[in-house]
């Protein structure tokens, strides 16, 4: 989608970054920095694994109680569950934002260079969002699966017949929810540093070393 500015002297002034090129550049930079990408992703994986395991053990406990027929959920347990979920979300937010902040700030120079070559602010943001989306999605998927398995194992160590009594629908729903939260947070975490970097005068961005 070309953006047209005022035409001057009959020249159609165009600056653009086609989506295909953007995806290519973003994927390449994930691939080339694969170690760095893995470390960023590890933060996301851990955060989402923690969240998912908490959510899953919640579902396990509930399913066991329901099949046991007793709808007498103990009040103390429920509030601990909520508390744990809230903390895990917080861990998730901090972990992911930190990972994205690091991966953007260490590349100010590169961002500055791109701006010198004519990149608009939102090209930079777009590249980082695609990159963050990829890292976030892959990281969250891995994390959610690990967390799910961990939650089940924890349940099995506590109760019998976990797998047969598990409410799969509700467990899967939480799995999907965790992946969405992870991918969403990763993208949101990247927006702020990417926009800040995008707005810097290129000379400053190129000089910034961390």
């Amino acid at each position, binding site marked *: 989608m070309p953006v047209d500015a005022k035409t001057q002297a009959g020249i159609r*002034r165009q600056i653009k970054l*086609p989506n295909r090129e953007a995806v290519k550049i973003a994927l390449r930079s994930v691939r080339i920095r694969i170690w760095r990408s893995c470390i960023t992703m590890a933060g996301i994986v851990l955060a989402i694994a923690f969240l998912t395991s908490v959510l899953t053990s919640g579902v396990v406990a509930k399913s066991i109680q329901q099949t046991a027929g007793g709808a007498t959920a103990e009040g103390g347990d429920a509030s601990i569950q909520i508390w744990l979920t809230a903390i895990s979300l917080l861990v998730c937010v901090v972990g992911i934002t930190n990972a994205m902040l690091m991966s953007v700030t260490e590349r100010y120079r590169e961002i500055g260079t791109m701006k010198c*070559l*004519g990149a*608009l602010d939102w*090209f930079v943001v777009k590249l980082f969002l695609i990159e963050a989306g990829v890292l976030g999605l892959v990281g969250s998927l891995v994390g959610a699966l690990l967390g799910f398995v961990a939650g089940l194992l924890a349940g099995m160590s506590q109760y019998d017949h976990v797998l047969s009594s598990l409410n799969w629908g509700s467990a899967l729903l939480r799995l999907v929810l965790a992946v969405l939260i992870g991918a969403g947070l990763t993208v949101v975490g990247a927006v702020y540093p990417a926009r800040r970097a995008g707005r810097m005068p290129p000379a400053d961005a190129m000089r910034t070393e961390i």
Partner: protein
Amino acid sequence: MAEAAVDAAREYAVKTLDVKKEYVMGKQTLMALKGVSIEIKTGEYISIMGPSGSGKSTLFNMIGGLDKPSGGKVYIDEVDISGLDAFELAWLRCRKIGYIFQTFNLIPVMTALENCTLPMVFAGMSSQDAMDKAADLLALVGLGDRIRHKPLELSGGQQQRVACARALANDPAIILADEPTGNLDLKTGKEIIALLRRLNKEKGVTIISATHDLKMLDVSDRIIWIRDGRVDKIERRSDLDLEVGSLEGEEA
């Protein structure tokens, strides 16, 4: 010669009016530019000379629209660039000006070819055309056999040549070259100078180059001497010819 008449007819490609730049570092402020006014006509070949730290790179950043001056005005093609919006500024950087940075500023994760392709992608050229042209440009600077190398796999001089090729990508009207031959051996340095000179002569590209290279002075129309953030003096090459001997003595 009718040079004066021709000069008068040409408009200014670059004009700065009392440009100041102040860097604030904690409590200290440093005036890197203390009011620089220069006028450069379209199609001129200008060398900017001055000791290290005199403000050459800072001035380039101002002229190239890469940083905002703390005071004064910069005009590119008679347009005050402080009045440009983000889009127009990006267009200027992408299409109008080609930069060769002192520190090369290649993108480390991209190959030489990809580095050269990037400005053309931003300019809206198709990927295939951009790659073809980038390959041609790299061949032109003598790197035809290294196009798949990343910057870190190249020597300093080779990186500099990639930076040159990248600066030519969108056929800029102005080339800002910060020490383009600083890392090059005599032969390659001469080739780059010849290349810039050819662009200047044949296509009327305005060249503004910071340099310590005497070979470079030899081809320039005028030399602007910067000292301590101010314009020290401006000389035509014809005036300089007499002085090259003494200059060499001074540098040695």
